[in-house]
């Protein structure tokens, strides 16, 4: 009871009335409710899948042709048990595990934002645009996804000389960020649009391509899988990588495991790989073959 002061008769009558309202079987009520919850979740997934298929219809044929780049060497179903002790997989600069989402150093805020920044590869832009009712603001995306500061392509290249550009049909990124966790983290972000659908956790972000140096002890990204996601070991550009499907969280673990940055949830798919001292990460709602097609367009 959290009502501190003495109750007057009417207040007492209300508390008494409330105490008479009860559930005859809490477990049964919970079970029935959870049936509805699962049904609602499945309906929502079907709705999203349907809209994804509609949006990507035209690009699927093209994507299929690109699948030869990526050879699946092993399929690893990550244990589903929520109590599983972390099974760390990974590549330079990125680890993958199942289990609990890592603790956060500061209570994080859920990702809300929405979508669009005018195309800009030369100069940062903070002018928001509206697409389909959702607003993409580069500064908000940078903040919420902890991507760092918005920069020009030239500025990003100064920090990461090995930076590669995407030469896909999506055009130049809508925003470029330079972050310091890990140092030298460059993120290309494309707003959500037809063919690049935002995820539930990031409805206005259609595609994120990240590159960062991963040699030495510079810390690493920790990707935590959920019960409905899985990781598949793959070979990308002759190097080891992983295809991660389903929602997951990303946290940054500092050098020497010194600290854990707040986690950021993603409800999208990811392709990660490393090569020549650089780790690459593609986050999107794209399929595996479409993500592979993007890799082929890196120059």
């Amino acid at each position, binding site marked *: 009871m959290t009502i501190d002061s003495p109750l007057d008769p009417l207040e*007492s009558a209300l508390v008494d*009335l409330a105490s008479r*309202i009860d559930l005859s079987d809490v*477990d049964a009520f919970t079970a029935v409710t*959870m049936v*509805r919850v*699962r049904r609602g979740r499945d309906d929502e997934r079907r709705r999203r899948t349907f809209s994804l298929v509609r949006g990507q219809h035209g690009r699927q044929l093209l994507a299929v042709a690109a699948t030869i780049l990526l050879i699946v060497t092993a399929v690893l179903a990550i244990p589903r048990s929520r109590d599983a002790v972390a099974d760390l997989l990974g590549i330079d600069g990125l680890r993958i595990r199942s289990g609990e989402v890592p603790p956060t150093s500061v209570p994080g805020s*859920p*990702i809300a934002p929405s979508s669009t920044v005018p195309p800009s590869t030369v100069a940062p832009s903070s002018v928001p645009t509206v697409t389909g009712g959702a607003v993409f603001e580069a500064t908000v995306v940078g903040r919420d996804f902890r991507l760092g500061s918005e920069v020009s392509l030239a500025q990003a290249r100064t920090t990461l000389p090995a930076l590669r550009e995407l030469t896909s049909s999506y055009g130049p990124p809508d925003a470029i960020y330079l972050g310091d966790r890990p140092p030298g983290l460059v993120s290309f972000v494309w707003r959500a649009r037809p063919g690049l659908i935002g995820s539930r956790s990031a409805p206005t972000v259609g595609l994120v391509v990240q590159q960062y140096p991963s040699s030495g002890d510079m810390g690493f990204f920790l990707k935590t899988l959920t019960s409905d996601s899985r990781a598949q070991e793959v070979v990308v550009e002759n190097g080891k990588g992983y295809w991660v499907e389903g929602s997951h969280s990303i946290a940054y673990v500092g050098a020497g495991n010194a600290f854990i940055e707040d986690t950021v*949830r993603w409800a999208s798919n990811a392709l990660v790989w490393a090569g020549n001292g650089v780790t690459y990460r593609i986050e999107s709602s794209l399929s595996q073959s479409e993500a592979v097609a993007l890799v082929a367009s890196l120059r």
Partner: protein
Amino acid sequence: MSDETHDETSLVERARGGDADAYGALVKRYSRDAVRVATAITGSVGDAEDAAQTAFVKAFLALDRFRAGAPVRPWLMRIVANEAKNSRRSSQRRERLAERSHERYCVIAPSAEEGAIAGVTTTELLRAVGRLDHRDRSVIAFRFFAEMSEAETALALGCPVGTVKSRLSRAMARLRAELATDLPAAGGEG
């Protein structure tokens, strides 16, 4: 952070990751509060049960928007109250069924004697609450039906704690007026 808060945070994080069992634990923990709040809003245990379940579904689908580390109960109860309001509105549009064919779990225990106010039965009191507007019903539901603190109520209503006090005071005055209309002898305490 208390153990209970930590436990809740953990359950929410797991539920966010798609762990239905974790969410089920939250449903079980707050199911009574939910049906009580929903009953106060809808005035019907049948509608309240549906509204509470629907609210739990909506809350699950909205977990991404829940602020990490925030108290769960005010957030859930706010969703329950909104859903109960919607349910009440649709209930008023349709022909209400006197008997429902499927099993119900939400019940009101019969009162063997009159409540704290002479001449006012639990049914009459519930009806009087039901005649208040949604703002009044909500604050009464959160404070007395879910027994939420003023701070929690403020979170659920999205207003300062001081506003909770004044809003509750006005709601109670209107409730007394409603009871006085029905039963002039009742609610005389002031």
